[in-house]
C-alpha cells in the first residue's frame, strides 16, 4: 500500500462540546449552538465565525430520532453560516469521525482555509424500543436484524467469540466499565459521571430511605455482577457494559497549517487520517478484530509516520466494553488476545502504562452517536494542550489518537493529532 499524504497540512485551532446527557426540551440544533459557542470561546487568539467557509456535520439518524431530515442546513442557519455550504455525513456511530475526515480533506485540497466540523444526535425523545430499532438500522436490515440481533447483541456475540478464542472471563468486561466510570467522574461533561462506588452507595441509601432491605454488595465487582443492580442486556453484556442513550453535540475548527498560529500558539496538527469499511458481521473471517479498524489504523499510522507506542493520549470507541478491548488490539497497543489481560493488569487505567479513554469513554461520558467522533477529539484537544484538569495525563503528552466505529465495524476512522 502506497503511503498517502495530505495535499497540505491541517490544524485544529478550536473545539467545544455540549454536555452529554438527556435534555428534554432541547433539540439537536440547540445542543449544536452550545457546542459552537464553547468552540468559539476556545480559540486562544479569537476567531470571527464569519471566516468559516463550510460546515461538515456528522449525524446518524435525526430522521428517525427527531423526525427531521436535511439537518445540515438547519445547523448552518442556527450558527449563522448560511449561505455557505453545509453537508451532513452519515456513517452510523462513526458519522462525525467521517465528517472530520471530510473537513480535513476539504482544507487539505486547498478549496477552503477554514471549516467547521461538528457532530449531533438527539436520541432521548424516543421510547427505548424505538431507540433500539433505530440503532439497528445501522446493522444489515436484510441479514443481521431478522436473526434477532440488536446492537448490544452483535457486540455481545463478538464477546463470546473473544472469550472462546482467548480464554477471557466475562468479568473483564465489567472492569472496562468500572475504569471508564472512574475517568468519567472527573469529566464535567459526562452523562454518567459517577464512580461505580458512588452509584452503589446511592443505591444502598435509596433502599434504606424507602425502608427496603439494604443490599450487601461487598465491593464494586459484586455490585456489577448482580443481575438486579446490573441487568443483562445481551449476555454477556450487561447494562454497565453498554454506552447510554444520549443527547449531545460537538464542534471543532480546522484550518490550513499556514494560518494556524494566527488563532493559537497551541494548534493540534492532524498528522494522520485513516478510514475503513467492512461487510456485515457474518461475512467476516474473524469476530475478534475489526478489519476496518486495522485498515484505518495502518493508513493513519503510515501517514503520520508514527508507531502505536508513540501515541500518548487515546480515545477509542467503547460503545460496548468488549469493543474497547478489541480496539486496543486493532490499534496495535496490545497483541491479539492480550487486550483483556491489559485490563486485568490495570494497564489501561489513567495511571497505567497505556491509558485508554481518559474522558470516561462513550460508556461514562455518553454516546450521542453522531456526535461521538468529534466528542473524542475534544478529549485529545484537552489532553494535548494540558487542559484536562483532574484527569490530565502526566508527561506533557503531545501525540493523541481517536478511533471511531460505525455499526459493528462496517465503518471505522482513526485520526492522529500532534501538538508541536
Amino acid at each position: 500500500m502506497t503511503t498517502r499524504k495530505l495535499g497540505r497540512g491541517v490544524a485544529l485551532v478550536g473545539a467545544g462540546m455540549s454536555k452529554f446527557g438527556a435534555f428534554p426540551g432541547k433539540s439537536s440544533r440547540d445542543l449544536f449552538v452550545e457546542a459552537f459557542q464553547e468552540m468559539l470561546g476556545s480559540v486562544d487568539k479569537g476567531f470571527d465565525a464569519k471566516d468559516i467557509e463550510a460546515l461538515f456535520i456528522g449525524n446518524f439518524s435525526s430522521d428517525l430520532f427527531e423526525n427531521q431530515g436535511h439537518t445540515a442546513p438547519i445547523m448552518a442557519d442556527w450558527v449563522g453560516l448560511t449561505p455557505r455550504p453545509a453537508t451532513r455525513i452519515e456513517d452510523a456511530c462513526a458519522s462525525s469521525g467521517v465528517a472530520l475526515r471530510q473537513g480535513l480533506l476539504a482544507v487539505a485540497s486547498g478549496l477552503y482555509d477554514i471549516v467547521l466540523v461538528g457532530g449531533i444526535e438527539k436520541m432521548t425523545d424516543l421510547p427505548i424500543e424505538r431507540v433500539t430499532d433505530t440503532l439497528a438500522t445501522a446493522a444489515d436490515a436484510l441479514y443481521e436484524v431478522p436473526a434477532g440481533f440488536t446492537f448490544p447483541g452483535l457486540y455481545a456475540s463478538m464477546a463470546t467469540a473473544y472469550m472462546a478464542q482467548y480464554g477471557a472471563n466475562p468479568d473483564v468486561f465489567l472492569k472496562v466499565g468500572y475504569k471508564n466510570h472512574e475517568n468519567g467522574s472527573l469529566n464535567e461533561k459526562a452523562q454518567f459521571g459517577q464512580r461505580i462506588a458512588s452509584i452503589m452507595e446511592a443505591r444502598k441509601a435509596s433502599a434504606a430511605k424507602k425502608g427496603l432491605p439494604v443490599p450487601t454488595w461487598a465491593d464494586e465487582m459484586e455490585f456489577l455482577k448482580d443481575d438486579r443492580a446490573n441487568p443483562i442486556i445481551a449476555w454477556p453484556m450487561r447494562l454497565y457494559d453498554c454506552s447510554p442513550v444520549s443527547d449531545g453535540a460537538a464542534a471543532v475548527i480546522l484550518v490550513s497549517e499556514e494560518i494556524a498560529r494566527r488563532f493559537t500558539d497551541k494548534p493540534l496538527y492532524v498528522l494522520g487520517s485513516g478510514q475503513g469499511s467492512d461487510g456485515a458481521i457474518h461475512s467476516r473471517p474473524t469476530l475478534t478484530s475489526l478489519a476496518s479498524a486495522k485498515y484505518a489504523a495502518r493508513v493513519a499510522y503510515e501517514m503520520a509516520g508514527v508507531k502505536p507506542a508513540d501515541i500518548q493520549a487515546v480515545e477509542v470507541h467503547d460503545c460496548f466494553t468488549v469493543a474497547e478491548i478489541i480496539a486496543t488490539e486493532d490499534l496495535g497497543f496490545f497483541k491479539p488476545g492480550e487486550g483483556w489481560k491489559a485490563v486485568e493488569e490495570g494497564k489501561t487505567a489513567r495511571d497505567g502504562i497505556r491509558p485508554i479513554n481518559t474522558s470516561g469513554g462513550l460508556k461514562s461520558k455518553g454516546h450521542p452517536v453522531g456526535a461521538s467522533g468529534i466528542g473524542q477529539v475534544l478529549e485529545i484537544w484537552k489532553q494535548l494542550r494540558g487542559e484536562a484538569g483532574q484527569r490530565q495525563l502526566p508527561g506533557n503528552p503531545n501525540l493523541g489518537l481517536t478511533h471511531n466505529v460505525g455499526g459493528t465495524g462496517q465503518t471505522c476512522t482513526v485520526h492522529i493529532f500532534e501538538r508541536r
Partner: protein
Amino acid sequence: MSDTEFTSTAHYNALGEHRLVGSRCKSCGILFFPARPMCPECHGNDMEADELSGKGKLAAYSIIYIAPTAMIQAGYDRKNPYCAAVVNLEEGPSICAQLLGADVAHPETIKIGTPVEATFIDRGEGDARRTFLGFQL
C-alpha cells in the same frame, strides 16, 4: 440467471421452501450465502445457484434480553430471552440466525464450535408471514 434469482427476496422465498440457496461464482468457485448477484472478488456475474446442507458450527452467540420490536411481537422479552447466533456453515459461509434449543438461563454452557443444524421459523400473520432461518443446537 433471472433478474431476481440472487436477491434477498429469492433468499427468503427459498427459506419459505426450507432451502438454503447460495450463489457460486463460476470463475472463482467461491460460494456466497446469502446469495449475491455479483462476485465481489472478480466482479463477474456468472453465478450459479448452490444449495447448502444447513449443517454448521456455532461461531458466536448472545442471549438477548432487550429485544427489538419484531422479536417482542414474536413473544420474546426480558423474562423470555432468546439466543441469536453466528453460524459457520460446513460449505464455508457464515450466517446470522436465531439459535433454538440453547439453555438461555445458563449461557456459559453454550459452547462455540458445537454442531448445529438449520431449522425454519415462521413468524407473522397473513401477508406478513415470513420464514426465517434458525439453527437447532
